[in-house]
């Protein structure tokens, strides 16, 4: 009560700070900038904030905060456009949204999906802020109760969502998740610095693959290629069914799901070190488990959007707790935010333990500015969603080149290496085959995302636990089996048991027909070959670096075991069994007028040309050739579209001060930006 007595006046002060016209003006400015920047998948918040930094120095603190928070808050909102309309996961916060959002767009319900997503985002943001207002006062001891074993268990809970998303053949789902984890271990190990499936001669690999690239490769590339092959619009029949108002009604009908997922979002967001990577999967799993008729998931079930979207904006609020109370950034954009706060005003506001004591009014301003930015951003997004949803009725052949352009640029921004494009292509190829043979792509992505946390927390918790056990047995047991851990174990077990029972009804790839043995078998053998090489590679790490080899060995061994069982099953079962699912046998892909390889060749062409003449020149050639040859557009149309694409690219990259991939040409001749 004593806390509340001091907190309430500060809350009043905070509102007095926020509700000045000029502060609201800055907030709206930030929101608009955030929405504009948010169209770039995988870049949004960080690029936007970096852009604002030069203006932060000495700025009136609350103005600067309004501007920055306006920008950060709307990124998880605006990247929903890319997830729903194009199947491009814009950030780790919108991976799960793709699963049902994109199928809805394909069914002509893009506007409905978007408005349901935005309504959930808004609500999640508000629930998050309300919860935080009280929680932030008592958060410190609770956050500190989450040690390494607890974090490990939450990660495993996230991983257990694989059970729900494994698809019709559970073994395939588990192997896909295992493969994702193995791909996630590529590079220099965090603990001992050993190299796994990498060499110092290829420096690119030592850093490991970035989430942006894997997300784009696994989800976006296969969808773009598939739609391009079919040469139709995203929305079947090029018509829009339900409108934006239906989406809001959907959200309201599922308001309790939205409440629960918002709370999940805040609660997981509060724990430092986990970030957003698990939240949306846990929320998605929860949505599935609490839905009676599960058959719609993966095919455009609106609850599959409402859950993750409610949680991801709430998570941003939760993520403020470690950022503000401990000075530990929950995400990349929060890290810049901390740096920027130090530049504000006279530099008096220092993010960290002192925030609550010295700057409670500022803390509350931040929390509620975030909520307010959500409201403004959502209203703008809903207003725009009807119009933007029309994109899904355009013939896809006119969209595809721009999407190739966008994803290549986004991929390049993650590491600023030409290799980023190669990695995108390679992962894209894996994605195409996972999709074709009905191996769960969400399971693969969950595996990849959680690979590093699982490894890190396992090693660290093991090290500390063995230290405690050396002191005494009880102390070790107390450390590992804290009450929180036990609760999490129970939740995980329940969710796995339920998940396995439900997995068969959730077909993320739709109803895939089965065909002959040959193609699925070759793909399985290719995966096994990779796993064997990775296992041998991990086995070669010397034993004193056990921390670097144990996880690849265990996970790799497990995945390989799954593959071996699959192999035996494949040999024994007859052709046409579900295990031989193959999209090229029947359905949209099989009936497509264009083949896989000729379509993929366009993308290869863009990458190869970039290698020679650099991105912008390659893009000009690519766009012109594509529109003329593939789309059959006349010259006028071709030139207008090309100019629009190049202009947009240069405008955005110029404003964000970003470079384009250079080619061999740029190594020889000095060219001015944007050609350099």
């Amino acid at each position: 009560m004593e806390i509340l007595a001091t907190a309430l006046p500060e809350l009043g002060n905070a509102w007095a700070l926020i509700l000045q016209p000029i502060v609201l003006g800055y907030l709206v400015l930030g929101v608009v900038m955030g929405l504009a920047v948010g169209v770039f998948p995988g870049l949004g918040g960080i690029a936007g904030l970096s852009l604002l930094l030069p203006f932060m120095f000495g700025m009136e603190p609350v103005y600067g905060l309004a501007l920055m928070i306006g920008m950060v808050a709307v990124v998880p909102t605006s990247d929903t456009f890319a997830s729903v309309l194009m199947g491009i996961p814009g950030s780790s916060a919108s991976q799960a949204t793709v699963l049902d959002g994109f199928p809805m767009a394909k069914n002509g319900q893009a506007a409905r999906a978007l408005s349901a997503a935005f309504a959930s985002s808004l609500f999640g943001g508000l629930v998050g802020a309300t919860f935080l207002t009280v929680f932030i006062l008592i958060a410190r001891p609770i956050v500190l109760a989450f040690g390494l074993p607890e974090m490990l268990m939450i990660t495993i809970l996230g991983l257990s969502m694989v059970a729900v998303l494994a698809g019709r053949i559970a073994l395939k789902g588990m192997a896909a998740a295992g493969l994702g984890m193995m791909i996630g271990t590529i590079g220099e190990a965090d603990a001992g610095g050993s190299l796994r499936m990498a060499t110092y001669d290829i420096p690119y690999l030592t850093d490991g693959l970035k989430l942006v690239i894997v997300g784009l490769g696994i989800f976006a590339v296969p969808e773009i290629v598939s739609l391009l092959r079919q040469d139709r619009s995203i929305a079947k029949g090029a018509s829009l069914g339900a409108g934006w108002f239906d989406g809001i009604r959907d959200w309201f009908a599922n308001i309790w799901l939205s409440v629960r997922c918002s709370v999940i979002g805040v609660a997981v967001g509060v724990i430092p070190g986990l970030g957003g990577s698990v939240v949306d999967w846990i929320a998605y799993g929860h949505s599935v488990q609490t839905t009676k008729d599960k058959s719609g998931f993966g095919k455009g079930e609106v609850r599959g959007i409402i859950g993750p979207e409610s949680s991801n904006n709430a998570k941003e609020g939760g993520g403020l707790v470690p950022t503000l109370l401990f000075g530990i950034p929950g995400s990349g954009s929060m890290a810049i935010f901390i740096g920027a706060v130090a530049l504000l005003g006279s530099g008096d506001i220092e993010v960290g333990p002192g925030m609550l004591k010295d700057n409670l009014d500022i803390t509350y301003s931040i929390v509620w500015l975030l909520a307010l930015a959500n409201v403004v951003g959502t209203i703008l997004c809903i207003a725009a969603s009807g119009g933007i949803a029309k994109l899904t009725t355009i013939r896809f052949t006119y969209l595809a080149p721009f999407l190739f352009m966008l994803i290549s640029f986004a991929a390049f921004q993650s590491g600023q290496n030409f290799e980023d494009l190669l990695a995108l292509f390679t992962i894209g190829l894996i994605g195409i085959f996972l999709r074709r043979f009905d191996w769960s792509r969400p399971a693969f992505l969950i595996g990849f995302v959680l690979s590093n946390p699982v490894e890190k927390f396992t090693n660290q918790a093991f090290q500390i636990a063995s230290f405690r056990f050396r002191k005494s047995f009880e102390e070790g047991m107390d450390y590992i089996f804290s009450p929180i851990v036990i609760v999490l174990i129970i939740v995980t077990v329940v969710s796995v048991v339920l998940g396995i029972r439900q997995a068969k009804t959730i077909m993320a790839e739709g109803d895939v027909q089965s065909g002959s043995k040959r193609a699925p078998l070759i793909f399985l053998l290719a995966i096994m070959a990779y796993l064997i090489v990775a296992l041998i590679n991990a086995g070669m790490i010397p034993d004193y670096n056990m921390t670097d080899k144990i996880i690849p060995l265990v996970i790799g061994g497990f995945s390989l075991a799954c593959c071996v069982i699959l192999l035996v099953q494949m040999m024994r079962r007859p052709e046409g069994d579900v295990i031989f699912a193959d999209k090229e046998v029947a359905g949209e892909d099989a009936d497509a007028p264009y083949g896989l390889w000729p379509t993929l060749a366009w993308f290869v062409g863009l990458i190869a040309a970039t290698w020679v003449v650099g991105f912008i020149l390659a893009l000009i050639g690519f766009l012109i050739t594509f529109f003329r040859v593939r789309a059959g557009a006349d010259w006028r149309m071709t030139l207008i579209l090309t100019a629009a694409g190049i202009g947009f690219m240069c405008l955005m990259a110029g404003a964000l001060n970003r470079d384009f991939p250079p080619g061999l040409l740029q190594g020889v001749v000095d060219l001015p930006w944007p050609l350099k």
Partner: protein
Amino acid sequence: MTVSNFTRRAVMSLMTAAGLAVPAAAEVDFSGKTIEWVIPFSETGGSAKWANFFAPLLSEALPGQPTVVVKFMPGAGSTKGANWFQEQAHDDGTLLFGTSGSTQFPYLLNDPRVRYEYKDWIPVMASGTGGVAYLNAEDGAKFDGSANSLKDVDFIYGSQGATRLDLVPLLAWQMLGMNVEPVFGIKGRGDGRLMFERGEATIDYQTSSGYLGGSVPLVEAGQAVPMMTWGALDADSNIVRDPTFPDIPTFKEVCEATDGCETSGEAWDAWKAFFVAGFPVQKLAFLPAGTPQDVVDTYTAAFQTVVDRPDFAEISSKRVGKYPVFVGDGSQAALETATSVQDGAKQYVLGWLKDAYGVELN
């Protein structure tokens, strides 16, 4: 912008015409140009903070008030960016590069990925920081200015990796005969402090700003006891008490008071060499090889202007810590101290890394 530039140019030409004394540095004019300050780390690290602090001040101080933008080129623990900078030639003086201890350590340790040579680059500014080690309350009670009664305690420390800046504290504790087991794989000192606060780690260290912001409240609450600072360098390169923490003894003092710890010899030289590279000269700003002297002078003058600002001490202490900023010749000297490690010291550290942590860097 254009108008004020025009006015400034007009005024300048008037001044020149009138034969007024114009500083030599003003011959270089960056009007309308954009200076790229490349940082080989991500947008989120300490070096980003450092460059973002200096960028607007530098922009004001350079002739022609160019826009100074900070660009990030992360990868391979900064060796990617540094290797890239090695390839860059002087063009029109609009390229600036920033390094940190994480760039210097692989260079000193002959990391196979290092393809850059510090001696080729031209330093224009250097700045440093300090560090403070502290203990949990229980073990802190046993600390009496020496580590004698801490030798039979098993400590746990959350570490980013033995070849990083953590080399300095790990080697220091080892020299004191303490038994500190590092838990590797954390992503920043903030995570290490959190591990300490949760009671999982029992010993920790923070750089000065991290200590002031996050650990002092722990000390005030009685949950942590400061043990030692790494110290600071005086003009003759002697280790003295850190001016930010005059009440906390330095590692040198603690080592002298502890049985079996020597402040001379191989181990000490090695520790000191890496301490200097990691702390008092932690961050450096460079121009590429072959930059003409007038451009170098212009930058030196600009950084000098920044440092001479009457409010510099005040604005910098809150944002980057109150440690000396070396400019011009000072930065050259700083670079030399930071990158010249005797072969013996280097071999000692390489041997120790291998014996203690199984790390081999080739």
